[in-house]
């Protein structure tokens, strides 16, 4: 790994250099595909491909025209013929060496899931604390372990959350437009995906241009000036060549929370709006206040997504761009942060890929080649306006309001080769090699002015907060801000064998070995055993390990501020600080091991009863270490925090689930309910962000074009990670019950290919007042949640 601080003036940032290299590599890769793929393109049949965790389950139909003429076989011979299993169906997901939930397009439409967070929230063993984190808004927990950087989000098999492992939001920037299905794997998957597939993997499978043929436009409007709009278009350009385009746009003023939570926002109403006052610091006495600018309520949200996918036989390229912008004061008490339009966090993720599949030996041998590139960039205008950054650098005497800005960017590219081979009908295997290069600039400290990505950092004149000070002798005490750069490579190889010697038995064993130039070598094995003792019954026992990369975001995250030190006469003699979080580039990966058992019984394809239990151990947990009276940048700091690998955690739990589906006449009735028990310890204390008892259920009803879906989530209390009572016990956020409802009337108008549908969605139908757990000391223990939201829309399809 190469690291550096304070970019040398005149030297272009390393990201720009690497972009040029990436262009050369893409050209080289294109030549490789052109050379190796020509004959394959000519002979490949048009089969529907799957991106569904290809290495997990093997790809879909592999047939070719060559080989045995099945049309000449007798009916009885056909009956005895076994097939290469598809990745798409529920049977195959039961065979997979993981706990997998598959959410189909039909379910997404009927339940009215607008974005990924809505969908994940209904899956057992996943919890989301919404609007509870100032910087990345939503905290997602898989099986008791919280962290948005602890799982991977992919679209069509390619990662679309930050490849360098920064936590970020999961809202309308991940829309569910033009989606065929979403697959959610709970538990470790590093044996295939390497770092960061720690607690789970989410894969959004889009439709290709032929599947999405036509055009579909959805427009909607709802309470709090909310609008969500999508565009889906698909066209078959030539035989075997199709193009799909997807777009979405979301905007909301968001609720004026003082109207709905007057007690929680009494400071906002009585001190801020009237007198322009905020508290100096959560660590200072309550009576210590500062003057802050009085501005209108402004925590609006804006998100968009744009994606394109071109399929040409066995060759495919894709591009996705997603953007999210929201308040950076979310969950923070109004005593310590300003709910104004300027306090926004925004970022963009771009991802592009190209892949080709070569199939030989009657499709028993497949070689998948792919190259992908992704970028993550925090918008330079992102800023905080809270007590840690002098309320956005506000100077009451001059009226200057410039500060609290942040910046971050990274670029990653990944090349992967995967060779799969069916040795016999009872044995298949996959061997893969990946090479990844990641470089970038981790999140900066608070900046007085916006970062300019086009100018070397060292020329921009950034200084740490509170250091624009001159001492009594006229010396400038300003401290230049450190900017860090990182670059590392990762070489990984994986092997997995799947054997099914008898119909009732399936075995999977494999592992992945990674060498990373930052943290060295890691091995992540996994094994699975699936047994079907009788028709409809499945029992699975699984073991897996995973590791979480110590992302640059955490390794180099540093924030705090200085203030003048004075002598007895009030003369400035230097600087001092009450608090700094300082970097630790020597962090190592967190490691995880999980054992789990799944049991499922399908009764006549009408009722499925299932249960699972898991136990997870985590070691080398990254946690905060606190020291006192240290120096930072040569000045004394009272409290210094740094992240270290020292903790251990365990998480264990179980879920029971019953789902039914009946289709009498034109009706569809689909009730489902699950109960999850989740518990564990982290560094000797109960798990934060975790509800011990959770019930999730719903009822979907459909009759011809009409459908109704109700969904309920009941959670017991959850604990705060840092806020404590007088006895040192973690503060708890009360449990809650939230009911959602979605109504849809499909094809109200159907004239030839033109169709009109309408829908209305109610979130928090009972207008409950409830809270979700936050993560910092200056926040509410529980962030007030949205009241009833109603939104209605029209869908036009041609």
């Amino acid at each position, binding site marked *: 790994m190469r690291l550096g601080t304070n970019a040398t003036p005149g030297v272009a940032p390393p990201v720009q250099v690497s972009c040029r290299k990436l262009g050369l590599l893409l050209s080289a890769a294109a030549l490789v595909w052109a050379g190796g793929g020509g004959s394959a393109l000519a002979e490949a049949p*048009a089969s529907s491909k799957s991106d569904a965790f290809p290495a997990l389950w093997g790809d879909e139909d592999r047939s070719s*025209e060559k080989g045995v003429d099945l049309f000449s076989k007798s009916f009885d011979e056909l009956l005895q013929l076994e097939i290469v299993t598809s990745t798409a169906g529920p049977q195959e997901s039961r065979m997979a060496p993981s706990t997998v939930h598959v959410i189909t397009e039909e379910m997404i439409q009927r339940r009215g899931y607008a974005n990924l967070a809505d969908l994940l929230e209904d899956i057992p063993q996943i919890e989301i604390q919404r609007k509870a984190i100032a910087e990345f808004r939503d905290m997602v927990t898989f099986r008791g372990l919280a962290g948005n950087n602890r799982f991977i989000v992919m679209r069509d098999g390619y990662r679309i959350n930050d490849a360098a492992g920064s936590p970020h939001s999961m809202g309308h920037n991940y829309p569910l437009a033009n989606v065929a299905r979403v697959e959610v794997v709970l538990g470790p998957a590093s044996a295939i995906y390497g770092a960061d597939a720690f607690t789970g993997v989410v894969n959004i499978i889009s439709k290709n241009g032929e599947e999405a043929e036509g055009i579909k436009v959805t427009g909607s409007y709802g309470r709090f000036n909310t609008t969500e709009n999508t565009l889906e278009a698909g066209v078959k350009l030539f035989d075997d060549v199709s193009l799909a385009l997807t777009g979405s746009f979301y905007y909301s003023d968001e609720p004026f929370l003082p109207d709905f939570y007057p007690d929680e926002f009494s400071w906002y109403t009585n001190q801020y709006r009237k007198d322009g006052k905020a508290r100096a610091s959560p660590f200072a006495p309550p009576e210590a206040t500062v003057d802050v600018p009085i501005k209108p309520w402004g925590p609006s949200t804006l998100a968009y997504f744009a994606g394109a996918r071109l399929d040409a036989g066995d060759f495919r390229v894709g591009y996705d761009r997603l953007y999210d912008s929201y308040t950076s004061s979310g969950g923070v008490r109004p005593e310590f942060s300003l709910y104004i339009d300027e306090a926004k966090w925004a970022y963009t993720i771009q991802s592009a890929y190209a892949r080709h599949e070569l199939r030989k030996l009657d499709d028993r041998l497949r070689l998948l080649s792919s190259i992908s590139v992704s970028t993550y960039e925090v918008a330079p205008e992102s800023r905080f306006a809270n007590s840690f950054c002098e309320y956005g650098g506000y100077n009451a005497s001059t009226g200057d309001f410039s500060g609290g800005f942040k910046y971050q960017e990274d670029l990653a590219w990944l090349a992967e080769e995967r060779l799969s081979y069916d040795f016999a009908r009872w044995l298949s295997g996959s061997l893969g090699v990946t090479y990844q290069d990641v470089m970038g600039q981790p999140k900066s400290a608070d900046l007085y002015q916006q970062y300019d990505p086009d100018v070397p950092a060292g020329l921009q004149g950034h200084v740490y907060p509170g250091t624009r000070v001159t001492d009594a002798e006229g010396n400038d005490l300003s401290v230049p801000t450190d900017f860090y750069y990182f670059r590392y490579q990762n070489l990984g190889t994986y092997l997995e064998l799947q054997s099914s010697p008898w119909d009732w038995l399936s075995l999977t064993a494999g592992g992945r070995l990674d060498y990373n130039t930052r943290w060295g070598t890691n091995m992540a094995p996994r094994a699975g055993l699936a047994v079907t003792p009788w028709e409809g019954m499945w029992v699975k026992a699984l073991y897996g390990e995973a590791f979480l990369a110590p992302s640059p975001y955490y390794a180099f995250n540093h924030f705090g501020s200085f203030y003048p030190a004075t002598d007895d006469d009030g003369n400035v003699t230097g600087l001092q600080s009450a608090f700094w979080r300082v970097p630790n580039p020597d962090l190592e990966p967190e490691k995880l091991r999980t054992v789990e058992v799944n049991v499922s019984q399908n009764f006549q394809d009408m009722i499925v009863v299932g249960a699972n239990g898991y136990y997870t151990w985590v070691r080398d947990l990254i946690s905060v270490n606190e020291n006192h009276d240290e120096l930072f940048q040569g000045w004394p700091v009272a409290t210094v925090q740094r992240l270290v690998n020292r903790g251990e955690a365990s998480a264990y739990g179980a879920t029971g689930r019953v789902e039914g589906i009946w289709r009498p006449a034109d009706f569809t009735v689909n009730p489902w309910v699950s109960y999850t028990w989740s518990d564990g310890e982290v560094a000797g204390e109960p798990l934060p962000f975790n509800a011990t008892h959770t019930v999730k259920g719903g009822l979907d009803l459909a009759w011809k074009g009409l459908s109704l879906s109700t969904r309920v989530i009941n959670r017991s209390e959850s604990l705060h990670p840092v806020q404590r009572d007088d006895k040192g016990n973690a503060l708890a956020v009360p449990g809650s019950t939230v009911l959602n409802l979605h109504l849809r009337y499909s094809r109200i108008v159907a004239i030839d290919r033109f169709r009109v549908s309408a829908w209305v969605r109610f979130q928090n139908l009972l207008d409950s007042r409830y809270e979700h757990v936050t993560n910092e000391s200056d926040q509410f223990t529980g962030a007030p949640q949205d009241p009833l939201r109603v939104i209605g829309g029209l869908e036009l399809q041609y």
Partner: protein
Amino acid sequence: MNRCGALLGLVLVAKLLLAPLDVLADSKGQPAGEYRVKAAFLYKFLDFVGLPEKAGEEKVASLCILGKDPFGSFFEAVEGRPVGSSGRVLKVHRLARDASAQELRKCALLFVARSESESVRDVLEKVRKYPVLTVSETSGFVEAGGIINLVVRNRKVRWEVNYDAVEEAGLRLSSQILRNAVRVLRRQED
């Protein structure tokens, strides 16, 4: 950068080495592709169903695929081949999702692709009471009035049958089809 070049070089070499392997292909004893098997069953179904002759279609058995075709070129090898002992030859039609009722009713076998799952009921309504063997692979197809829904059980292709729909269409289904169905829906006996 050098390592990247070496890696891409390896890819190129691997692809060139693998290119001639198809001449060694021997699929005996190996599992077959799902849609090849399904295609073969559709071909057999045409022979196992008592299909009345249709005006202008006396010499062909029309197998129609509505929506996104998952079979690719599999039917090319068998198109024009006689269907059992009926004397008719197979003709494959690929229909767009806006195909008219008249077009659908000309089909001897209508395969409704997964891409049309949302409009299954509309499609079935257009061919209701017409001698068209409707087949799909969509959950809820037989409940919606379709005749045969293909499923995969223990890695083998099987199907569900709506017997009432068979009778409503005026078709006669071979006992072999019924015997190997994993489920036969007979609403009238409920």
